[in-house]
């Protein structure tokens, strides 16, 4: 079952969306796989079923999951969409990283140099 971790300073449903999205785009829950029921997911995360429902509705709006009537919710099989979300996720991580480096006063050439050495010290 999925392992959830929360930061109590931020809305729970947003964190649920983020963590479920990561599970889906990283392939830990493979395309086409059926998700556990809202109640079971809520229990696993120890959150209110209403909050879990809200997060799943959001994932459905993002078209990362879909509902098959009476059968439950499934991870999308649209691989292009999954790839798009992976890239979006990577971009936002890189932006955070760049902002942090900028605040440290490290310029792009230095960053690129470090990256070209696979992250080892200069």
């Amino acid at each position, binding site marked *: 079952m999925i392992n959830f971790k929360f930061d109590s300073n931020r*809305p729970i449903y947003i964190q649920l969306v983020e963590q479920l999205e990561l599970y889906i785009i990283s392939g830990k829950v493979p395309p086409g796989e059926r998700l556990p029921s809202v109640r079971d997911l809520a229990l696993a995360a120890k959150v*209110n079923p209403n909050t879990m429902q809200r997060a799943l509705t959001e994932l459905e709006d993002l078209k990362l999951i879909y509902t098959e009537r009476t059968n439950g919710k499934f991870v999308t099989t649209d691989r292009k969409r999954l790839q798009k979300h992976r890239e979006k996720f990577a971009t936002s991580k890189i932006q955070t990283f760049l902002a942090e480096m900028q605040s440290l006063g490290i310029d792009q050439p230095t960053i690129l140099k470090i990256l070209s050495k696979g992250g080892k010290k200069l």
Partner: protein
Amino acid sequence: MSKSRTKTIVKCKNLSKSFSGHTILNNINLTIPEGKIIGLLGRNGAGKSTLIKIINGLVTPSSGEILIDNQSVGIHSKNIISYLPERTYLDKTMTIRQSIKFFSEFYADFDPTKAEQLVQELNLDPDSRITKMSKGMQEKLQLILVMSRNAKLYILDEPLGGIDPATRDYILDTILSNFCAGSSVLISTHLIADIERILDEVIFIDQGKIVLEDSADNLRDQHHTSIDEIFRQTFKANIK
């Protein structure tokens, strides 16, 4: 939210209560919607238990009105509310099996099979007497009995007081997995950090007044901090 309009299970209008000149509740206006888990949060002596007792018909208000499921407090409200008081009222000379039987005879909506199953999951012997059980186990049993009713409103007064963290997890799990879909749970506590994750809505009560009423995620969104922290800050300012 989007779907059907949420219905109200409890409505308080200008509700006040005083005991011998002391105002305990001061003009409370409150609606509790169906299908939500609501935290009634306040410091010791804020009026939480008095409000809960009024909803349960154990205390009569000095003025104002209270409606449960659109009716005044009475037989109907007692039928649809499952109440966990602060102190246990179980007859401790009973065995677990007897207490389950007692509840089935008392409440039409009690599900004995569910209670037996929950007792079994705790590895408790149904024939052991309540008096022989530890305090934590007694609290678990009491909660099992309360949550085994198919009620419309569960009211839990300080369900987390004086228990260890593992028991706390058990209690939260039991609440989450056993309340009926569509029914509401009102939980009073001052141990906010432990339960804030399961709350839809929070109500802050202080000195007999409602000081804040909002959805938990809205509050986190606006204040960028936890409900626990918002609570501490709200009441730090009020102490002066």
